[in-house]
């Protein structure tokens, strides 16, 4: 069945889209850069990080590009002072939420959060840092989970459930108390479902999930392609 063709405007430019595609997909194909963190190519989108918000004319609300389907005749704005301010604030909040002392992180200079913060000019955080003292799960023979670096994007949960089919990960508790858990909140190393495939580690945007035995800056991931590309280009935002 041939796909229905739509045309939408992105930042004034007329672009082709297909019914069922999200604004994010269309915009990226058209070469626009929209920052994302919870989106991961190939995984179902959840609209959690709110970095990909865009303005859609006719809608009073800001909509997440990753979950909003393109509609014929839609006019989307991906860059505006308000969007930039809100996106920066979102990053500030993420940086304040846990512990993101990059200088001592395995993912330093390979981290999507850090890359976006740099690219978007987040030079200081105006909120007080929460610095909760969260545990580090070292029970798995090959991987570590450091909750202090986790941004609760749920990419690990989705890749494990939807791609590997292992359903090891889940989210527990509410609000700022929310935390990623493995297998009914047992140590990762004791999770019978874990196949040790390492997909979650690769999907994780930060240093929260990493391979064991690495030192600062040593953890590189085959993460989000589009974003990695942007990072390499020096983040033209």
């Amino acid at each position, binding site marked *: 069945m041939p796909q229905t063709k739509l045309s939408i405007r992105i930042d004034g430019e007329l672009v082709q889209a297909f019914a069922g595609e999200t604004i994010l997909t269309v915009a990226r194909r058209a070469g626009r850069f929209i920052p994302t963190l919870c989106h991961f190519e190939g995984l179902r989108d*959840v609209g959690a990080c*709110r970095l990909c918000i865009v303005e859609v004319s006719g809608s009073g609300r800001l909509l*997440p590009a990753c979950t909003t389907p393109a509609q014929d005749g839609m006019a989307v704005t991906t860059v505006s002072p308000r969007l930039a301010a809100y996106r920066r*604030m979102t990053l500030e*909040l993420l940086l304040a939420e846990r512990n993101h002392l990059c200088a001592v992180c395995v993912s330093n200079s390979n981290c999507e959060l850090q890359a976006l913060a740099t690219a978007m000019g987040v030079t200081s955080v*105006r909120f007080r840092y929460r610095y909760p003292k969260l545990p580090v799960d070292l029970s798995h023979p090959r991987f570590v989970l450091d909750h202090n670096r986790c941004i*609760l994007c749920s990419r690990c949960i989705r890749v494990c459930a939807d791609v590997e089919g292992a359903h090891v990960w889940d989210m527990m508790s*509410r609000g*700022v108390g*929310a935390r990623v858990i493995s297998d009914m909140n047992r140590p990762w190393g004791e999770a019978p479902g874990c196949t040790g495939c390492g997909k979650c580690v690769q999907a994780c945007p930060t240093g929260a999930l990493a391979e064991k035995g690495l030192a600062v800056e040593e953890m590189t991931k085959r993460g989000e392609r589009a974003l990695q590309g942007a990072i390499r280009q020096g983040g033209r935002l």
Partner: protein
Amino acid sequence: MSRIEDISTFNAVREAGLEKMLPGVPRIAVGMGTCGRGNGAEGLYHAFHEEIHGGGVAAQLTGVGCFGPCSEEPLVNVAIPGKPMVILRRVQASDASRILSDAAEGRITPDLAWCRVDEWDHITAQLRYGHGFPELPLWREVPFFAGQKKIVLRNCGLINPDDIEEYIAVGGYQALYKVLIDGHPEQVIEQIKASKLRGRGGAGFHTGIKWEFMAKAKADCKYVICNADEGDPGAYMNRNEIESDPHGLLEGMIIGGYAMGCAEGLIYVRAEYPVAVHRLNHAIQQAREYGLLGENIMGRGFRFDIQLVEGAGAFVCGEETALIASLEGLSGRPRPRPPFPAQRGLWGRPTNINNVETWYNIAPIVIKGPGWFTETGSMKSAGTKVFSLVGKVRNTGLVEMPLGTPLKTFVYDIGGGAARGRSVKAVQTGGPSGGCIPQEMFDTAVDYETLAQLGSIMGSGGMVVMDDDNCMVDVARYFIEFTHSESCGKCVPCRVGLDRALDVLNGFTVGTGALPQLELLGELGGMIRDTSLCGLGQTAPNPVLTTMRHFRHEFEDHIIGQRCNAGVCGDLALSPCENSCPLHMNIPRFLQLFQEDRMEEAFDSILMDNPLPASTGRVCQHPCDNRCRRQTLDDAVNMREVHRFLADSMLGSDRFEGMLERVKVRKQPATGQRVAIVGAGPAGLTAAFYLALLGHAVTVFDSQERAGGMLRYALPEYRLPKAVLDREVEIIERLGVQFVFKTQVGTDISLNELDSQFDSVFLSIGTWKESWVYLPGTELRGVIPALPFLEAVAKGGAPDTPLGPRVAIIGGGNAAIDSARTALRLGSQATVVYRRERKDMPAIAEETLAAEREGARYLFLAAPHRIVGNAQGQVKALEVVKTRLAEFDASGRRRPVPTGEITRLECDSVVLAVGETVDQDFCRASGLTLNENGAITVDRFTLETSRSKFYAGGDVVTGASNVSNAMAYGKRAAENIDARLMGAGRFAGLFQRFEYEQIALANPSASPRRVSHELPASVRVHGSDEVVIGLSKPEALEEARRCLRCDVRA
């Protein structure tokens, strides 16, 4: 068991129900909702049960739901055959037997009777009780009910919720029968659309449109869901509706199911509502037995059933997608829309979700038609809404009001206004994610659009009234704390944003905030609102954003002034009394030092906080009393009288010189800076005292001959003997302050001259202009403004114009009372004419009473109409027009309106005491920036005017106020002027430390509050001797021992 198959079986059930509703014996119905139970309804029910069954009394006992007025629970309805049903309030178990014996004799127990119901409109049917008991008000004549319209609550508190037959008796299931007989589901949807009914759960989406969307969705199975997961703290309308009338909900859902083509209904109810769960289960069971649920409903071939699901009750489950997730057994987290539930909802099937209250509106619309429904409410928001009115009003409870009713109706008419001595300052609508609407905006119509424009929401209908004891910063903090703990944690703005907003707010309440954080908070609030995934995050910032918009000054008070005027933020105040004292006197400290018999130190503590302690000890409005925590036991500590006692015993004793030496020791070395103070009133004297202590060369200019301002020239000798004031002025003089009298700034010396001769200038002239009323006859001889009159008497004993034997005084403030009492002392008769009621008078209540004892007369609810003169142009009479109190105005008091009824008051002179205004001439001539009232504009915290080096405070800034407020300006001016001249921090260094006991009193003195003695009225009106004689030492000491030491921290 009678299964309803057709009209005759249906009618038979109705007849059976009517027998129960109107039995041949008295029907006693006890309100047994959760709220009634909490107030002892169960015990009450048992007491009736014992009496009736034990004593063989002919009466029918039943339990009903809740009728609404929480503050009057428990309620009992008594219906004697042929007589009106009477609502009894605050009934105790011990009242049961006399209620029954009275009812047996056809009487109603008078002391418990509240109001009567002759007939009741159940909307779906009318019930006539009877006539009689004319001495009782009709239910809708009671202010709490007046204006209410019960559509949703039509059956609540009247029928037995556990008995389907009673529901059917009052027209229940007739709407269902009607739609099934008609057989046109699409017409039902048309009717709902035409009724403009909007979802009552919060967002206000049009119900008919939602239904239509759903009816069009094709699927093998569709669901209708009732969201009964009431999660707002303080909101309990849904609980009450279900507990009082469960079948009303079922009927609405069955009709909805029929209209939308669904066979399955689910009610998602909070597990924390056991009574509601129990009643619903019972009602579903009964409905199945009567053929109203299940196969072949009412013999019309329609199949529909309802299941009850008990939810864990998370706030976020009010969000439709989160609720669906929870029903599917997943954790209650919202997901992005589209797809909408009507497309893919529960188990991927089309799903319609409506709130409890929405469902209750369905049957009435079907029976009465959409036209009838839109008659009630406003243009865009038809019908009624149930609100829970709670907080700082006299009457609280559940009220059902037409949409579009102004807020002030809720607060003042239904709620009865604030408690005595308090004033309402805001209403928070819509639950934890609603906004605060300030008192100035109480004309606001309560409907979806208008509330949204003000940054608030309708939400579930919560309405929390706040008065001046509520701190708006704390209110914002409280609600954010709630929503923050209810955030599901999925999206960043809500999860982290609310948490950091709470952190900022916490900082404000403990005094560690800074102004840039206030801006940051505003930006953060907007960001959370605009970018959150679901309704929880999108609305959660409302309380912050609205309080920041309407009560920004309170935020600034916390951040800049380090003060919480409401006294809620404990870290920003020493004790309630210290916090409410304009001078922030350390009251518990001097009370304690006094108790430790350290009189000298007690006095030093007082004087350093308040340089006019004996004068204020007599004439201060003592706001400290209002907040004293001792009031919760009996009465406030009489702090003013204690400091008067301590001041009197020091100032009048030979220890005066020693005290003065101790004060002089605290004087800082000379700084070489010169400060001019314009005005030797309370503000000027206070500033002079502190600035002299700080080592500056202070010169005070005043147009009068002596220092004291209003204290000397407006307050009569009998209230404040001038010898007392002289002694206080002496202290200030001997600290080196220079006084230049009979010098008018502006005429004798210009501001430019002051500018060139001094390093800083403080403008603190008092209010010396009497406002004039535009009244025919004011040109007559014998019409006298109050202030010049009082001044003339204070100076030399006799006014310029003789008063004659009878004086009329127009006004209700302190100047009016002082004028009356002065007139009495001059041998005249005095009548005070005031347009409102006694309780509205701004004058100090003790003074009003004292004047009355001396023979002053009052004429309330009377406005001056015209002054009548004789042929010689001399006052002969005052004509007054009787007033009536109409609706509430912006001051929260009822507005007096003239009735046209005119009476004449024969008199020989008229004193105008209608209020003082700022000396506009002075202000205008000053060349400084003025505000819209013509007063000088200053920075609220530093008192700087628009001209560099110039500060202003007191009446020139606020308009007429009182002594302690004026002095507070003087104190603040001294601190800021010094900081400007010398750098910050020196002011705090003036104050010495005292070591004294720091133990909160486990058992304070049990004595009642001491009031000071007065000279007998018959003696005092013949002279100008001081009327109020202070406390004796043992009395003052006993009074001090009553203090609870709120300043001691655990």
